[in-house]
């Protein structure tokens, strides 16, 4: 599903004393099947971009096109389009409301009119992929722990297999194991289905690990828009760029240092940057152990 932003502006509570400009003159295209990470400090406008891309907000000025369809206050996205979009909010409490985990996950499956057996199978599969077994099916989602709630919320979004997936700080507040499980599942799921993914995060390591393209937003403006390898190359070539990124909240991480060192040693690494430690080892064995 292709997303196009053309000179988009967004103002919260427009025409009120509380009006706040969140985005200014934003233009970009997310090709179908791309994995893009949006980064920036709190309040920089990341979530607003995600919500505009998912058709949950309408631009104050400019145009947003989702799968070729222009979205605005006068042309809200039709239900048929909404059904193809999944949005995971930062706080799972905003979406959990059913009495049982089973019903919660089945909520977005209702419209698909599946047979009870197929529905059950998809629910169990979705829960398992986030490390939750069948014993959770009859539990009340409102009384689960924070991490479990997040997993149930994510399972209830992934279960409908959306073509556009917007994840708004999907791993915030999770323990390292829970975070790892979600990231692994997301990477596998993306490889298997190739949906368009918009991943909103504060964590540069997560972005470098998962995304092909990176957006860096600062005060409602896009200060960087390009591939992950482009970012690493530019960081090596232009020290001023690194400080501009730091100003936008992107502090250099040890994983970024590893990638930069690898590229410094061998430019070939830029063609396919390793995603994690195992891939670095494999890369070294492949190219340098001959």
């Amino acid at each position, binding site marked *: 599903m292709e997303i196009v932003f053309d000179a988009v502006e967004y103002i919260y*509570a427009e025409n009120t*004393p509380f009006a706040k400009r969140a985005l200014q003159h934003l233009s970009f295209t997310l090709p179908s099947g791309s994995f893009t990470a949006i980064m920036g400090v709190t309040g920089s406008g990341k979530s607003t971009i995600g919500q505009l891309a998912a058709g949950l907000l309408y631009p104050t000025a400019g145009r947003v096109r989702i799968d070729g369809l222009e979205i605005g206050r006068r042309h809200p996205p039709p*239900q048929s389009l*909404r*059904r193809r979009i*999944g949005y995971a909010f930062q706080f799972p409490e*905003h979406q959990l409301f059913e009495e049982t985990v089973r019903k919660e996950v089945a909520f977005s499956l209702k*419209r698909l009119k599946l047979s009870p057996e197929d529905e059950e199978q998809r629910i169990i599969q979705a829960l398992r992929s986030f490390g939750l077994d069948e014993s959770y099916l009859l539990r009340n989602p*409102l009384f689960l722990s924070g991490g479990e709630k997040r997993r149930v919320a994510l399972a209830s979004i992934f279960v409908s297999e959306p073509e556009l997936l917007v994840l708004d700080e999907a791993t915030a507040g999770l323990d390292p194991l829970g975070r790892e499980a979600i990231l692994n599942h997301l990477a596998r799921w993306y490889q298997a289905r190739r949906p368009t993914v918009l991943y909103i995060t504060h964590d540069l390591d997560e972005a470098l690990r998962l995304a092909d393209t990176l957006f860096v937003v600062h005060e409602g403006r896009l200060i960087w828009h390009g591939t992950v390898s482009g970012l690493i190359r530019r960081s090596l070539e232009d020290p001023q760029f690194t400080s501009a990124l730091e100003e936008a909240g992107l502090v250099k991480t040890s994983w970024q240092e590893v990638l930069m060192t690898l590229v410094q040693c061998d430019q070939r690494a830029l063609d396919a940057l390793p995603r994690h430690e195992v891939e670095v080892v494999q890369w070294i064995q492949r190219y340098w152990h001959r």
Partner: protein
Amino acid sequence: MALIESFPLGRYVPYTSFVHALDPRTKLLTTVAVAAWVFLATTAGMLCFIWIFLGVALAASKIPWKYFVMSLLPIVWVLVFLAIIQIVLEQRGTTVWQFGIIRITDQGMYGALFLVMRLVALFAASALLTLTTSPLHLTRGLESLLAPLKRLGVPIDAFSLMLTIALRFIPTMLDELFMIVKAQTARGADFSSKHIKSRLEALLSLFIPLFVLSFRRADRLALAMEARGYDVKRTLSHWRVLTFRWADRLVLLGVVLITMMYVLLKFYPVLHTLLGKP
């Protein structure tokens, strides 16, 4: 969703203006007085005067009138509903239009117009109070005004704190509702569906998270207050003591005079006939 963003009750707009600078007690007493005028008003002239008074107060508060008018939109449907009930149920007066058993009379229409004007004035007065007074000042004012009741054992401090918290969290709850609407829309809840069942289901998906979040927040807030040593039985000292200035005295004098005039107009038929009946 735009309505949620503009709902004025409980939203304080931190401007510097004559109305903002008034003592919270002055503003509270004036709001109570306006409510009394609304109920004492029996003629169109008396109601129009309240509107003019509120208009002047709005101008003096520097709150943009467009925002203020827009912020009254959430109550439009309540007003329409009440007006229809008034029109349909009032059977006195001459018939203007009749369809089957439904009879609309001139008295019913006047009654509906008066009702709407009264309710808008009441809502506007309370909105103006919360838009120009921070919740903290509002509590302080209320506490000070109700202080005599403390001698009778009424827990005024706890009551004013409850009111502040309620007012303070109206905008937060509206923001939260806005987020929940978006979260459920993203999951396929259809708030504009033609099927009543789907709409009710969609609404249920809003209220449960909203209630759960509100109770959780109340619980956390109570814990946080206890952790910071709040004790309802202890008398708190204040950094800034409320004082009446000349402007407050003048406003209160005016309010007292207007209230006396309204009481006279209401209860003295001689004056009533002089100014004309509706």
